[in-house]
């Protein structure tokens, strides 16, 4: 696969505050790449550097091998779908989509053909004469996508394009964006803080935090083999406990020695151990590897989410078996359900559910970067 964009050792600070700290990233032809991270992690700045709206303080941006650091946005073969669409209110749907072609002074017949094709692609045929302000959020979103794609850019940048849509519409648009990406073969660079969105759409996920790339990988890699406690916690739910790697494929945590599948750590190295809530089996207390008391049960439709107190550490377990609050249960964990990570600066910050509340989690998830 061909590299389209290479970011090399990019750093950027605003008013002395570091936003990007020595970032390097390769973006390949025809891939759907997602920059994922919480507010202020630098993902939007990365996107703006690729688009040309910001200049990196250090490092270089290569486009098909050529340095484009000094190229202004209008000369880059890259288009952006903005968070709040940024449609031109003085132009109707047709003219919004035709805008980049008019700038290039293409002839009317050609414009008509391309715009019609694009409107068909985003399922807005028949909306040509409508004013963009009369459209729903989802429709405006489609116009923005059509406008960004009509000039056939090599790369399409999408800055939290679905953040303003309601849940149902967002799910539909995720699928649709994926289909559009496949149909056009254009590389998509997608920015989001929503890990579910990132996992379901991307070929490659880039997890960012505090201006640094934490991990690059496929959604499955990122979920199953998180590199550190930050990634493990940000992507899905994780129980993260302190452990000691006794030898290859043997780890001790919570007072029990477990078989696992990881190897290559130092003898008796202190590690972070990740166990996903859905990978824990509930067994009668006497048969459990770990024993604990259920401290809360939440019914979530498909499964129950229970919090179990194991020697003071609160574990989250997702199960379809009903257990009651106060019940004593045993936990059974398969070797391949245990993932071992080296200690990092994020160790001990995440993965304990003692202060967990669903409501709080959603509140922090809903945080949208308006301006960065």
């Amino acid at each position, binding site marked *: 696969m061909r590299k389209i964009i290479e970011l090399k050792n990019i750093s950027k600070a605003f008013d002395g505050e570091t936003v990007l700290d020595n970032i390097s990233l390769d973006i390949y032809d025809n891939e759907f790449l997602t920059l994922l991270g919480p507010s202020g992690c630098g993902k939007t700045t990365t996107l703006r550097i690729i688009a040309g*709206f910001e200049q990196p303080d250090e490092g270089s941006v290569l486009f098909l091998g050529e340095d484009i650091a000094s190229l202004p946005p209008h000369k880059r073969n890259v288009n952006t779908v903005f968070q709040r669409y940024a449609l031109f209110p003085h132009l109707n749907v047709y003219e919004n989509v035709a805008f980049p072609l008019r700038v290039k002074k293409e002839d009317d017949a050609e414009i008509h053909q391309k715009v019609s094709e694009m409107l068909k692609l985003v399922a807005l045929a028949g909306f040509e004469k409508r004013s963009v302000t009369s459209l729903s959020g989802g429709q405006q979103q489609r116009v923005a996508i059509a406008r960004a794609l009509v000039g056939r850019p090599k790369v399409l940048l999408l800055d939290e394009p679905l953040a303003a849509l309601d849940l149902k519409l967002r799910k539909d648009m995720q699928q649709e964006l994926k289909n559009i990406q496949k149909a056009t073969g254009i590389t998509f660079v997608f920015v989001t803080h929503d890990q579910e969105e990132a996992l379901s759409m991307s070929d490659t996920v880039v997890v960012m935090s505090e201006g640094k790339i934490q991990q690059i990988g496929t959604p499955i890699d990122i979920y199953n083999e998180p590199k550190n406690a930050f990634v493990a916690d940000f992507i899905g739910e994780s129980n993260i406990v302190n452990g000691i790697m006794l030898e290859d494929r043997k780890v001790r945590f919570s007072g029990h020695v477990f078989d696992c599948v990881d190897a290559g750590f130092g003898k008796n190295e202190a590690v972070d151990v990740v166990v996903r809530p859905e990978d824990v089996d509930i067994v009668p207390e006497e048969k459990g590897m770990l024993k604990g008391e259920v401290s809360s049960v939440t019914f979530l439709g498909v499964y129950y989410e229970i919090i179990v107190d194991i020697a003071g550490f609160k574990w989250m377990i997702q199960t379809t078996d009903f257990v009651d609050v106060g019940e004593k249960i045993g936990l059974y964990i398969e070797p391949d359900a245990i993932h071992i990570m080296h200690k990092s600066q994020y160790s001990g910050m995440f993965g304990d559910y003692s202060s967990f509340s669903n409501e709080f989690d959603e509140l922090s998830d809903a945080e949208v970067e308006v301006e960065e």
Partner: protein
Amino acid sequence: MTKKKDGLTLVRRLALAPYSAWALLFIVVPLFFVAYYAFTDNSFHFTFSNITRFFTATSEVSGNGGVTKEVHTYLVIFFRSLKLAVISTIICLAAGYPMAYLLSRASDRTQKILITLIMIPMWMNFLIRTYAWMTILQDTGILNSLLRSIGLGPVHVIGTETAVVIGMVYDYFPYMILPIYSVMAKMDLKLLEAARDLGCNSFQVLRRVIFPLSLPGVISGITMVLIPSISTFYISQKLGNGKFYLIGDAIEGQYVANNLHFAAAIAFILMVILLVCMAFMQRFANSKASVQ
């Protein structure tokens, strides 16, 4: 529209009552009287004679070389007013538009300071400002002393059309810049980024996005400068030394001479002409805004 009115609650109607009464008393009734006087004679019988007088009245003026010729008095006055007002409006627009643009892109602090500076002259009395310009532009005034000190010959400005235009531009400039500035300050900067992203260089961003989006401000700026400058009378009397009789002077003259019916007729005709112009401009703006 009627449906909306029906939907108004009693409370809302009551809340609107003072404004409605005010509008009726000070806008509708006076307009009615202007029209009534324009179409009646001194004994309040219906007549078109005031209107026709505006278009047909003639007078003799001495032209170059002592030749006298007959001209349509009020038409000449009207077109002179129109010419000076249009020139002033164009100057205000040409200077105000780039200034409003730069202003809207400046830092918040700079914007506040500059806006205050633009507004300060508006706090001073209109007559005093005009008198100040008389002092500046006189043959022995500040302008000429300045020019003399740098070795340039005196210029004769006072009593020329140039002086009248300077006065109009100075007085009405804030009314041009403020509406344009307020539209530009509210403009979504993301739109400008989007335009650049879609291939526009700086000039194209201006032509394809900023200008069409600022049109409402431009239209109201033009309206707010053109209308008062076409009907002004004081500036021309003071800075034009009374040599350039404008339509406002004509109305004032007739009014002072107690020719109320003819004064009303001139005012009425001026109003109709301005309304037609405004309607035309609004139409132009709308068509420009919806179709590229």
